[in-house]
């Protein structure tokens, strides 16, 4: 299973938010934030957009495209 890498933990730390703080802002459970942060779960496009809008960043600055990651690796 291909899992997206993301910068969610770093962005959260920059805002000095706990996982619970971020979960409340996204209206999801803390466990869901943890699952996305640790790469256990890829968010849907609507949730990815909510995350991007919350941090005021484009999606690709939070989630690393798998194709770009593999091309860099080559």
């Amino acid at each position: 299973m291909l899992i997206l890498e993301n910068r969610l933990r770093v962005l959260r730390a920059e805002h000095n938010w706990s996982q619970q703080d971020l979960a409340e802002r996204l209206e999801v459970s803390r466990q869901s934030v943890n699952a996305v942060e640790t790469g256990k779960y890829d968010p849907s496009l609507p949730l990815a957009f909510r995350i991007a809008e919350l941090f005021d960043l484009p999606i690709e600055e939070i989630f690393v495209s798998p194709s770009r990651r593999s091309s860099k690796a080559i």
Partner: protein
Amino acid sequence: MMSVTAEPDAKRARFVWAAAFVIGMGIAGGVINSVHLGLIGSFVVALVPMLLLIPMVRSAERAQLAIGCATPATHRYNRRMLVVSFGYLLALFVTLGVTRRFEVQGPLLWVMALLPTIPILGMILAMGRLLVEETDEYQRMRFVRASLVATGLVLVLASLWGFLEMFNLVPHIWLWAVFPVWAIGLGIGQIANRWLFGEPGC
């Protein structure tokens, strides 16, 4: 927010209440089958362990908060399941009481036979509502995944048992057993989720 030490305590309490409920129901079943208590007496004996469902659900909700998987939809689901569980006990005793005491035939027998299925349909409806109302997509995905494990388990067991029964190798099992077996499968699915994601489910 719960402290770090509160999480294992909350999880432990959930299992203690669940074990108390199962043991209590076992004892109640044994007493009802071995002592002639009458319908009201049997109902009271069965009601006592059923009341353990209330602290069990409350401790489960505390555990869900501690784990971080609690959502408004799971809270509503827990409450609905609690209500229909009591409804099931009541319907079961009404059906058993009426059919054992009176010579029920015709349409009333149909009504009595179907009465306990109303709360069971309520349980299935509560599960459907959880899937519809759950806005946390990760938690919904975990529930769907556990449901698929449960469905797979029921399909496998029903196929195996059906053929074994056809050749008189195993005793007959009533079809209503499908739902409790599916519910056990849901629990196994939650364990599978834990293996897969490394976190306990709700």
